[in-house]
């Protein structure tokens, strides 16, 4: 009788790689964002809005947010796997993390594409 340990399946290399690819995307965006921000300081509503209304910035911000949410998912799941041992509670918390991230993702996309 094999006693299985509930962890899910076939993540590992894929998530390891995803954590690094998303990290690089976010790092590049951070530098681009700071450069763009330095061009519009002191920030007003109009300059802030115009920044994000540009096509390239909208796409770049969207890529950043998708990267952040995927990155946060892998990171939070790692933390929960390390510290929350009861399987039921861990799966519940992991589900909460996914729901929260997808909800925030929806709000962010709506914000960007309403401009």
């Amino acid at each position, binding site marked *: 009788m094999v006693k299985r*340990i509930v962890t899910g399946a076939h993540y590992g290399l894929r998530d390891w790689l995803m954590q*690094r690819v998303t*990290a690089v995307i976010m790092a590049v965006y951070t530098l681009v964002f700071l450069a763009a921000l330095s061009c519009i300081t002191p920030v007003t509503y109009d300059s802030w809005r115009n920044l994000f209304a540009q096509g390239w910035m909208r796409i770049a911000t969207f890529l950043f947010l998708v990267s952040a949410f995927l990155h946060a998912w892998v*990171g*939070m799941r790692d933390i929960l796997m390390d510290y929350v041992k009861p399987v039921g509670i861990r799966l519940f918390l992991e589900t909460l*993390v996914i729901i929260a991230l997808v909800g925030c993702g929806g709000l962010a996309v709506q*914000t960007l594409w309403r*401009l």
Partner: protein
Amino acid sequence: MADATKKRPVYLNLVSIRLPLPGFVSILHRISGALLFLLLLIFGVGWFADSLASPSAFAALKQTFSYPIVRLLLLVALWAYLHHFCAGIRYLLMDLDIGVTLAPARMSSYAVLAVSILLTLFVGSWLLW
């Protein structure tokens, strides 16, 4: 398979374990990551939506950002972001086999701690004050 469930001695007295510097940077990476997740969810996306919703919502947000307690929160968030950023670059370099031996790893740990605090003060004073 028996190994996975076998009881092994665990020594995890967090008070008496003296973490080496790279270990300290590592746990800060985790803490700052968890902090960023929580702040992103609780404040970040909502504030982002507010800032772009309307001129009046933008002004209200600016008002919120003038409270010292909110500024402190922003500064903590900024530090968490920058620490995670710097430590993350350190890990990416280590993935490329750069600075993996003891002396450079210790030096880069110092660098991550120092640079992220300096950057926090620099960016914070630029954006918040």
